[in-house]
């Protein structure tokens, strides 16, 4: 545990464990902190309400300067989520900022279920 990325991921995990956003949980694999598993509950008043969705997050050593790769494990029917589970979300691509942490990423993914963006 020595690189900046790993240090930061431990911090992210601590924050997520101590102050989790509603309907979101996640944790790194005990044997590999660069790959996380997460579960998101569908936001209320959407077709996804009452559903629980599984995701993986894959980090590189360049985190937080580069975003993680987020993939849905659950099969999703959503205009911004591709067949292979990868998603099209601006903050995970060109609008990424190193100030985001895992809690912020998962919250954004949850709100993507809330307002799909078909034009992208």
């Amino acid at each position, binding site marked *: *545990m*020595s*690189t*900046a990325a*790993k*240090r*930061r991921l*431990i*911090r*992210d*995990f*601590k*924050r997520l*464990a101590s102050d*989790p956003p*509603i*309907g*979101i*949980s*996640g*944790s*790194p*694999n*005990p044997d*590999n*902190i*660069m*790959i996380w*598993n*997460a*579960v998101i*509950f*569908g936001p209320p008043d959407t077709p996804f309400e*009452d*559903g*629980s*969705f*599984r995701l*993986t997050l*894959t980090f*590189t*050593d*360049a985190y*937080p*300067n*580069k975003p993680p*790769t987020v*993939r849905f*494990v*659950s*099969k*999703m029917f959503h205009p911004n989520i591709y067949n*292979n*589970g990868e998603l099209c979300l601006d903050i995970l691509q060109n*609008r990424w*900022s*190193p*100030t985001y*942490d895992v809690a912020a990423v998962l919250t954004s993914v949850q709100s993507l279920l809330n307002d799909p963006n078909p034009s992208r």
Partner: protein
Amino acid sequence: MDMSNHPLLALATDEPPPFPASYPQLQRLDRSIVCPICKEPFSAPVSIACGHSFCSHCIRGSMEVTKKCPVCHESVSEGSIRRNRALEEITDAWDEARPSLIKLSQPPAGPSRKRPPPQPISNDSSLNSLPHLKRRRDSGSRSQSPTKLSTNNHNEAVEFFGSSEEEETSPRENDTEELTEHDEGTCPICSAKMPIVSIPMHIERGCPPIKAAKKVNGSGNQKADWKKVFAGAGKGREKDVEMKRIVKPNYHLSSEKDLRNILSEHGLVTTGDKETLSARVQQWIILFNANLDTSHPKSLSALRAQLTEAEASRKRDKERGKEELGKELETKEGMAKYAKERRGEFERLRKEIMERDKRRAGAAVDTPIEVD
């Protein structure tokens, strides 16, 4: 919660204890000295053109990827990075004051129940005492002896407690006593003792040290100050040349030989292919240049060790096939296999949210339908 015994959480124990929720002001203060990138207290803080501040190492690393402010997305150049000395002083001072404030913020235990609960009053008093702390620390660091500093710390904590107790027990008595102009008072800024009449003029002049104190403290400081001036003209110059920022090479244009030259110049390993070499040079320049933005820099050998350790850790991960697992997730089959293997893990996460929601709502919540 289940998560509390996750093996990786145990690694995060170096974090200091948080302030209780009854002190939102202190929590806010605590948050305000945290770098938005690494989420740790600033180390070698710098500011950029838009006014946002980061650790030097963090923002330099971020600018290798994109030349935008991580907070406001405004375009910035590396040339606009400026060392923020005030912020460094604040971070250091806060770091030092924090343990005593944590103690003060804990609810009083046992027999001293007669005292009012440490709500606004004691809270204000602890905040008022902050300038004292900082001032004393300043005088300590000016004398430039680390041993003195640490003994000062010790006294500080003791005095700190004493003074806050005094304020709590006898504020009324002081109020009722009639004070005359010639009684001794304490300057609210530098807390020096002097006749009350002369305090306004003393503040007007920017709190010069009073004569009595000067004999003991002042002359010593003056000597140190003069030393600094002369050192700056003589020895310091030479050192500056050696500790000059490294100018970044153009990684596309420079050959392996150029990169090796830079590395050997700084006493680093020169093995590996071009990609490894330029990554190493890049990391070294970030580490080296960031190290110049602090008043307590690390030694070059410590920096070298840090670079080697990070590289070794990456290599270990590669050898253990950790990267391959990430690649595996890119294919559909790999993902299906992974999902099957970690089924229990996802189930645990799902249950965790449900338990949490139950606690939040206080009532039974519908069981969400699991989607495969």
